[in-house]
């Protein structure tokens, strides 16, 4: 089965994309609104005890808001996935998560201290009093403890030692923490007691994000599975350690997958059903066919070789912002490293361009690592695009193949290109540095990390 060339599709309504700037702006506006809630409620404060207590109130409000933002980022909302990009959402979530845990801890300590100062009592006594006499504070304390635990387990040092499953399991406790902490916000939060309107709005915010989560992570995938009935039609070995899987189903064009995007694939066999792994489409999606090309790195990917045709597949997505939407210039350079060729192969096939506009650099360590080379050559010939294979062991710092001089020689007019980069992290770093040195503005370099 030869991969098809891009075909004109019937015009569809434009896809909604929320750009990173808009998303950050919305988050910022929300934070300001939350602070305004405190501002409106506070007439005056004086004295050290008041300062501490109010600092505790502000950090508490922000923490309660931040957890909702973090959940929203991970809700797999298509507009965010397409606009901000999955990898960036994950980075925001990780950084934001660290900050939120700190906010929650700061809130706890400031409130204890502030109350102790105002009541002229000792810290220990005040802690005891808060835990035992104030409603729901005990649950809130358990919540902050859970958050700290999740924070510790998510630290890079810990993650290296833990299996993904263990980390993921502990991470799910954040849901429990949020649920436990919710009630104390209303029963002891100074900005919510006696303020029905504030409580309504706050609850609405939580309900809205919960709805997003339920819809996009549970119901929509279920609906998609029933509607598209994806299944394996063929498995092809591309080289010693790479395999392509062809998946077919009904009404695939309704998924509105774009070249460059990926799905989270769950192959329903006895060994593979429990994992949903992200693999990019390695060819333009056809109304009845999708293809992914996977490098074998572990037992899961190895098992893909033996998938029987007809095996049912659940595909969540499409996700990712590594698409033609990011392009702003006429000339485009695609730089692929190793398995990073997969999304770029799809883009190479479909990115609009006149002869000479599109260039692909494919960097691998050994000749046998090349995959889909015949397709790439065919596409290059047909579109009169250029493809260069940069084969060879990595030099001392891995950058010589992608040094600025080499890039400029291979790609005339480099500084006027839009560049899409995809590959292992060190290779991407080297490529980015060379591109910047060669005068490509940062906003014209588009990348997607696989390892998020």
């Amino acid at each position, binding site marked *: 089965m030869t991969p098809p060339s891009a075909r004109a599709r019937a015009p569809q309504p434009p896809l909604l994309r929320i750009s990173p700037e808009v998303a950050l702006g919305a988050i910022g506006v929300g934070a300001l609104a939350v*602070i305004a809630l*405190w*501002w409106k*409620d*506070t*007439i*005056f*404060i*004086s*004295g050290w*005890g*008041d*300062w501490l*207590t*109010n*600092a505790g109130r*502000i*950090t508490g409000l922000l923490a309660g808001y931040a957890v909702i933002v973090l959940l929203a980022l991970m809700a797999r909302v298509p507009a965010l996935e397409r606009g901000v990009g999955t990898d960036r959402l994950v980075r925001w979530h990780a*950084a934001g998560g660290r*900050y939120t845990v*700190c*906010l929650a801890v700061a809130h706890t300590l400031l409130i204890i201290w502030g*109350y102790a100062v*105002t*009541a*002229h*009592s000792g810290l220990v006594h005040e802690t005891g*009093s808060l835990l035992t*006499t*104030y409603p729901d504070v005990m649950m809130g304390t358990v919540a902050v403890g859970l958050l700290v635990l999740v924070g510790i387990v998510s630290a890079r040092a810990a993650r290296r030692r833990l299996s993904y499953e263990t980390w993921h399991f502990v991470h799910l406790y954040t849901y429990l923490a949020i649920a436990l902490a919710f009630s104390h916000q209303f029963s002891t939060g*100074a*900005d919510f*007691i*006696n303020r029905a309107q504030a409580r309504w709005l706050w609850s609405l915010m939580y309900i809205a994000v919960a709805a997003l989560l339920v819809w996009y992570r549970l119901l929509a995938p279920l609906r998609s599975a029933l509607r598209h009935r994806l299944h394996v039609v063929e498995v092809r070995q591309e080289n010693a350690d790479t395999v392509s899987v062809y998946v077919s189903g009904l009404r695939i064009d309704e998924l509105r997958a774009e070249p460059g995007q990926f799905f989270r694939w769950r192959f329903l066999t006895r060994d593979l059903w429990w994992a949903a792994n992200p693999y990019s489409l390695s060819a333009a999606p056809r109304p009845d066919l999708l293809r992914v090309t996977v490098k074998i790195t572990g037992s899961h990917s190895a098992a893909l070789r033996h998938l029987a045709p007809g095996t049912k597949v659940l595909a969540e997505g499409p996700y990712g912002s590594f698409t033609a939407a990011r392009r702003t210039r006429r000339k485009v350079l695609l730089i692929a490293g190793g398995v990073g060729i997969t999304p770029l192969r799809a883009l190479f096939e479909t990115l609009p361009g006149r002869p000479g506009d599109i260039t692909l650099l494919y960097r691998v360590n050994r000749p046998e690592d090349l995959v889909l080379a015949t397709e790439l050559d065919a596409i290059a010939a047909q579109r009169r695009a250029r493809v260069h294979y940069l084969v060879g062991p990595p030099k001392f710092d891995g950058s010589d193949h992608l040094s600025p001089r080499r890039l400029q020689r291979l790609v005339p007019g480099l500084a006027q290109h839009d560049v899409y980069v995809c590959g292992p992290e060190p290779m991407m770093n080297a490529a980015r540095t060379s591109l910047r040195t060669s005068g490509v503005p940062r906003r014209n370099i588009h990348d997607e990390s696989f390892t998020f």
Partner: protein
Amino acid sequence: MKRVLLSVTGTVVGLVALLNFKTHGHPIAAGTLPSAGLPNASSTSPAQAGTSTSAPPRAGTSSRSSTPAASAARTIAGSAVETRYGVVQVQVSVRGTKITNVQFLQLTAFDQRSAEINSAAAPILLQETLSAQSAHIDTVSGASYTSDGYAQSLQSALDQVGIK
């Protein structure tokens, strides 16, 4: 690391700025009382025939600060606010930038908190003091005295001190 420092400093600076906006120069909270200018008023109630006074004279210094009337005085009523002690609604009188008077329109105690604060200092009996001068007491409890006895009472001495 740089980003961590930036976010921590940014948060702290933001908090301090917000709190500072809301802090007025005139502290008004239990437990932060200036020692100078304490208002101390004593009053007599009309006694039975013999020593009655028609209108209770009120001697005492007022602690209101007298600023020159450079700017117009305004009264600002705040909305009801949940504070440490319960729901408080405050009416603030301002002249220029100085707060000249604060009136609490609403003050309802929150059982938990005010109970906790109120039980802060249990009564303590001081065995060692016997002389009124050295005891630095604020008031005197004793078996009832009439207005005749008042003049010679310790309480009257205390009230005199306040009046000065």
